[in-house]
């Protein structure tokens, strides 16, 4: 398992041998990388429950060599990484056909360094290696995001991404600094043993939330996400959204449940609030997007919000002494991480295939692709239904588990928290329902209806490797949806490591009943069996008893013969109800045509209020300070001499 990250690095370096050769990277290196990823996933899964193993490498700082550690938590996330990255790499092998601005060999290097960086983040067992891997991950993904750096918007997206990633990293570094307690000890083992006073552990937790939140797109440090994801090539967006965001979840889990001593209940409450606010925020913004990848990016904000909300619940329960409930919430959260890795990667890859086939990212110029690209369309449908949280796919399982955790709220010591938690459940179901809205918009506008541009008639389906990659991820969505019990049983090792208690046995394998069957249960195989039987039976009966005759005719045009593709709902149109209902959330600019305009045009831009409220003032403050500091250097030598003189006098006075 440990050989995989170096192998990835070697594969990447091999790409540099012949940087311009597409054959080398597409036919050999990417598939090889995918194979390594699958090996990683399989090995991690097989050993998930094994006890922790540590390793010290003779690298790093003299007093702080690289410490590695494989424990169930790390193995779970390595499994997630391997499983998602395997599919994405296979797709990427077929996808990077033309090279995306960067030479294919270089792209291969950056891609595999990115993978290795993520793996090392998960393996790291000391602060230094963690930070190194963390930033390598950020840096390599930055270069991948800016592959097409000739476009100014992509450059600024990349800058914003790296800046926020760096600020996040600074926050994480500070967090480790607090965690070390008093001694200069930066191995995670030492941090576990450092007995931190409560105020300091709260500070560390806050810094960790800020730092990891910046990577995970937690509101309000989410602004980079909708910019960077669309800018990146689609396999990279898939990896970033599907896997990289999870490393932030991993980090927060590691810090809050492993490194920090006993959590405080209000941490959980704060994280719950932040996460669920982010979930609602993300999904509302996703509903009004007109760029397919931006839409998915906002949907990632939503999903990560849900995950963080779940973590909040875990902390709340763990701090209030309800380990079983905490275990349920943690299982749900981890399961959602895994689910999101699969379906979001799948959807991002699908947008990539669409992008390659049509050259369009704007939803306003797509449509009807199910006819031209059946493979992509049907596989994407699975992802769409999964992310919309529909049974019997995987998105529903984690949603179900999380809602159970919300509903079985035991008596918490703080009465008002007891009131707030069900409100959290309300926010969660609202965002889940809105997600369905968003995904219908996403799928319907891209794949259904009439093509909105004539050029779409030339769109082609994706290649063989790409199909395999997509199919793998779709199969993952189905398998995780149908067989939650075996997966949860595996997860139990992770839960037990972090909380000390697990969910226990969940037999039988076909029915999920985390507490008691008579209180709540869900059996996806049975569900699918009955639902499928009824559906197929109905179809069989109808055809059997009556007939299966079909005639084709033009769609009904209301007697108005000039119907064309532009009369369908646009993406803006589909988002309009949401825009109206949640108007105060947006900073909206709308241009409506005058009634007598011969060439009417409609334009609406929807912006995030956080820009105006947080980021622009911060930038302005920095600029103002810079102007002030700039006054020091005002050109006159006499003044410079005066500085020297005054400094000298002041110090002399100080010393005397």
């Amino acid at each position, binding site marked *: 398992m440990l050989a995989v990250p170096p192998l990835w690095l070697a594969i990447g370096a091999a790409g540099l041998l012949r940087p311009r050769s597409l054959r080398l990277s597409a036919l050999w290196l990417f598939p090889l990388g995918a194979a390594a990823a699958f090996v990683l996933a399989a090995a991690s899964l097989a050993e998930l429950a094994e006890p922790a193993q540590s390793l010290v490498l*003779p*690298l*790093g*700082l*003299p*007093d702080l060599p690289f410490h590695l550690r494989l424990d169930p938590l790390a193995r779970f996330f390595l499994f997630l990484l391997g499983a998602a990255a395997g599919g994405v790499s296979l797709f990427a092998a077929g996808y990077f056909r033309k090279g995306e601005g960067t030479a294919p060999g270089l792209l291969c290097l950056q891609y595999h360094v990115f993978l290795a960086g993520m793996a090392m983040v998960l393996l790291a067992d000391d*602060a*230094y290696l963690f*930070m*190194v*891997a*963390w*930033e*390598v991950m950020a*840096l390599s993904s930055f270069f991948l995001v*800016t592959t097409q*750096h*000739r476009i*100014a918007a992509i*450059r600024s997206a*990349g*800058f914003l991404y*790296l*800046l926020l990633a*760096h*600020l996040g990293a*600074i926050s994480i*570094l*500070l967090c*480790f*600094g*607090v965690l*070390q307690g*008093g*001694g*200069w000890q*930066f191995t995670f083992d030492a941090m576990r043993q450092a007995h931190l006073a409560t105020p300091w552990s709260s500070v560390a937790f806050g810094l960790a939330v800020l730092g990891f939140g910046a990577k995970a797109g937690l509101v309000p440090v989410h602004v980079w996400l909708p910019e960077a994801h669309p800018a990146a090539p689609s396999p990279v967006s898939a990896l970033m959204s599907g896997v990289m965001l999870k490393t932030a979840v991993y980090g927060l889990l590691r810090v809050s449940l492993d490194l920090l001593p006993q959590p405080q209940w209000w941490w959980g409450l704060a994280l719950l609030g932040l996460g669920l606010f982010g979930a609602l925020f993300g999904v509302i913004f996703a509903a009004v997007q007109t760029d397919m990848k931006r839409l998915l990016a906002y949907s990632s904000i939503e999903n990560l919000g849900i995950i963080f909300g779940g973590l909040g619940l875990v902390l709340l329960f763990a701090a209030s002494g309800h380990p079983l409930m905490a275990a349920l919430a943690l299982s749900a959260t981890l399961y959602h991480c895994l689910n999101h890795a699969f379906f979001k990667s799948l959807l991002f890859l699908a947008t990539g295939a669409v992008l390659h086939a049509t050259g369009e990212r704007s939803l306003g110029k797509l449509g009807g692709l199910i006819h031209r690209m059946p493979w992509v369309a049907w596989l994407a449908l699975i992802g769409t239904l999964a992310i919309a949280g529909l049974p019997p796919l995987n998105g529903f399982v984690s949603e179900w588990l999380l809602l159970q955790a919300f509903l079985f709220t035991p008596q918490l010591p703080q009465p008002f928290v007891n009131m707030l938690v069900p409100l959290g459940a309300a926010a969660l179901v609202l965002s889940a329902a809105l997600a369905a809205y968003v995904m219908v918009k996403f799928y319907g506008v891209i794949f259904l209806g009439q093509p909105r541009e004539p050029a779409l008639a030339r769109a082609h389906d994706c290649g063989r490797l790409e199909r395999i990659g997509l199919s793998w991820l779709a199969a993952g969505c189905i398998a995780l949806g149908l067989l939650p019990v075996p997966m949860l049983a595996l997860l139990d090792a992770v839960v037990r490591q972090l909380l000390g208690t697990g969910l226990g046995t969940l037999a039988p394998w076909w029915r999920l009943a985390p507490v008691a069957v008579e209180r709540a249960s869900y059996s996806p195989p049975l569900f699918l069996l009955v639902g499928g039987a009824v559906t197929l039976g109905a179809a069989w009966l109808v055809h059997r008893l009556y007939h299966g005759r079909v005639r084709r005719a033009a769609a009904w045009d209301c007697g108005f013969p000039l119907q064309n593709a532009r009369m369908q709902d646009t993406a803006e149109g589909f988002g309009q109800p949401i825009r109206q209902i949640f108007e105060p959330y947006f900073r909206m600019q709308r241009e409506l045509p005058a009634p007598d305009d011969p060439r009417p045009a409609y334009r609406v831009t929807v912006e995030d209020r956080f820009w105006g409220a947080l980021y622009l003032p911060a930038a302005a403050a*920095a*600029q103002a*300070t*810079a*102007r*002030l*500091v*700039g006054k*020091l*250097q005002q050109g006159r*030598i006499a003044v*410079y*001499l005066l*500085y*020297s003189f005054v*400094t*000298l006098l002041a*110090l*002399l006075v100080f*010393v*005397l």
Partner: protein
Amino acid sequence: MELPILLVLPLFGALLLAVFGAWRRAGEINVAVSLATFVASALLTLRVIRSGPFTALGEQFFVDPFNVFLVALTAFVSFTTALFSRPYMRIEAEHGRVNARRLRLYHAMYQSFVFTMLLALCTNNLGILWVAMEGATLATVLLVSLYRTPASLEAAWKYFILCGVGIAQALFGTILLYLAAEKALGAGGVQALLWTHLDQVKSQLEPTVLGLAFVFLLVGYGTKAGLAPVHNWLPDAHAEGPTPISAVLSGLLLNVALYAIVRSKVLVEGALHNSLAGHLLMGFGLVSVVVGAFSLWRQKDIKRLFAYSSIEHMGLAAFAFGLGGPVANFAALLHMTVHSLTKSSIFFAAGHAAQKAGSQWIDQISGLLLRSPRLGWGLMLGSLAILGMPPFGVFASEFLILTTAMKQSPWATPILLSALGMAFAAIFLRVQGMVFGDSRLPRLPHPPALLPVFVHLALVLLLGLYIPPPLAEWYRLAARFIG
């Protein structure tokens, strides 16, 4: 025997180039002499590693792990800079910015500068140290004004006057030190300025006088090290001189000035028995970091930009020395090393970029990655390295400095970290604009020398991931010498 050779070589080179400096092959001579110097420094280093510190030539010279590491670094960077300057100056000559006479001056002064640096590092005599520091100013001041443009003259003038005044203050500090030393070591003794002797009796030195002396030394040498608020000469001189000079000013001169401060700090701390000197150094460091970081925000000139970054990093190193203790000293030494390697490689890349664009204005440079990918990557990776991005070595040293600061003076870390964040935003935005995007830049008449850039960056990368045990041991020894 290595030591005299080490010192004589650049002096000899300076004389040689004063005669042949305008020759067609002068660049190669410069490289050869620098290489020989580097070899000598390597031999010297080996000797120190093998047999420990020693004094030479009637105790006038003293080599211990602390300065020998700087000697090796200085010789190495001056060698790679000579490599870089060969094609660079040739292109400059082709562009008509320098003529034969100035080229001769350039080469001769380059070697003289290296001589003064090595002298300042190796000497045991604090007076000679002062003389060498002043000599370094004199050697480079005419190089700053090499192009004879109004801006370069102005920069050189400010450099000369401000550093002259600064160094005069350091002289007063040295006099005070001498005064205190005479009391301990006997009047009129030649040993009274020898660091090795002073170090032995440092606890008997009069504290008040030493405190005052340290103020003078700190402000004086601090001016040369570019510590705010006495840094004002630095951006001008770096921006207006030829790029190889910017590289050695940033990569070597600042280090040596800091070295002088640290040597004095050791004595003063020994005498004062409190952490006044450390606190003063930390204060200067902190102010420099903040001033440097914020000044970056308004830069339009690529070399000025990185000059401010040097102020910031010198501030960081000074802060670390101020913190004191084995880890912080180790980190500061590491930081000096990686900073001078990285910064000089950045200046190499930036210099070629500016040559391509025919301008140092940042908005005139764009799309380096398209037109000359190696140059673009050099600048990009160098900038990321200097911004403290892992896995480059600057991160390693910053990590050590920051974590030690968290332990010893937690109040300072948020300031440092936010300044680092500010610097990141400012520099990266500009570098990205230069490296990425479309390009209409012309080709250069000679292939740029990018080997030094990547050699430096490779070393910095290595130091970020793996510090070889001998090197670590060496740093540790040096850190212990500083105390």
